[in-house]
């Protein structure tokens, strides 16, 4: 499963591939997240979260929420599993500390 760090304007966003084990774990976590009616607010410029793509679904992890878009329908879930924190750590290890900053606190 590919991960896109959605943050840049001029440069292309960084992308990498999760290991099969990690992808499987995150998808299981996502499947158990509670749904919410909260609305995701994404800043225009700067860190806008992580976008995962799996089986035709586009999953955005940001701001305490995980939104899943599939066939034009989007559902929001609370990120009670700490997926943002997990992916942020990945980004830091890949040298994107300056990009994600303290994003896990959002």
């Amino acid at each position: 499963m590919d991960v896109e760090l959605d943050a840049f304007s001029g440069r292309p966003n960084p992308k990498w591939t999760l290991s099969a084990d990690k992808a499987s774990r995150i998808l299981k976590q996502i499947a158990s997240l509670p749904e919410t009616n909260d609305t995701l607010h994404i800043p225009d410029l700067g860190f806008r979260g992580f976008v995962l793509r799996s089986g035709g679904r586009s999953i955005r992890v940001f701001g305490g929420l995980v939104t899943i878009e599939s066939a034009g329908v989007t559902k929001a879930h609370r990120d009670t599993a700490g997926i943002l924190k997990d992916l942020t750590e990945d980004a830091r290890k890949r040298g994107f500390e300056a990009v994600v900053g303290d994003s896990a606190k959002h």
Partner: protein
Amino acid sequence: MSLTVTLNVFSGRPNPVWTVPEGAAAEFTDRMSSISTTSNLKPVGVMGALGYRGFSVRRNEESDAIHVHAGVIDPGHASPTLLATDREIEKWLLSTAGAHLTAAVKTHVEESLAGPVSHEALRGVPPPSRCPACNAVDAPVYNPAIWNTPAVQPHNNCYNYANNRITNTFAQPGRATGHMYTQLKTCTGVGAVEPAAVSDGLVASANFSGHLAARHGWYVALVLWPNVDYHWYRQDKVGCWSHKPGSTAARNVDNAGHTITDPKTANRGPYTVFCTYMITKASVHIK
């Protein structure tokens, strides 16, 4: 697929809910499709305190609601907001209620729909009178609908947008002319973005007040997220500025949702370094 329509009108009682059959539901889709003006701004919330507050439309139990009020149609965060020029879509939704509404409620909503559209629920809709003068004859018209489509939006960035050129290459300063930037630490100097843009044909400008005659281009502005990224704005015909952050939608507000009268003073998030205004024109080379 049928639609479930909720009329947001009551305070204490449950709101009226009814189902629109499949055939009529297609008309709702057609009516939405006919609205060509879009905005990336989202309504800040349901406007109005008591009485008519719009319709919520769901395609099925699990889908996001589409909110329709005062000419603003919000299909959800994944799609641009549609801005209607009249209240016809609301009048049509009201017409589908049939016997689900009492005469008194129907009359109240009809009276509400007699008023004009209002986009005040959106953050930062710019009053044109607040924009500075545009002194460039060739300045592009702000028309985000051209850019915010699935075929264009993901493949064109801020540099494409500032130069008003769709290349579908996520254009990079200097790449077309063999002098692509190699560092994002400084605005100028070896390997910086500004000289890369100059290589493409852009020209630095101290301000955006000088008159630019036809075929002499329009004003853009370069900013830096030091060591991370760069970003561009452009001045539109109306005088205010707009931009397209990466693969996201083109818009005319800053990170705080405010009209951009000058990118130097706008809320630019992490793009803290203002480099320069520049002049671009239709003949520049970008890739």
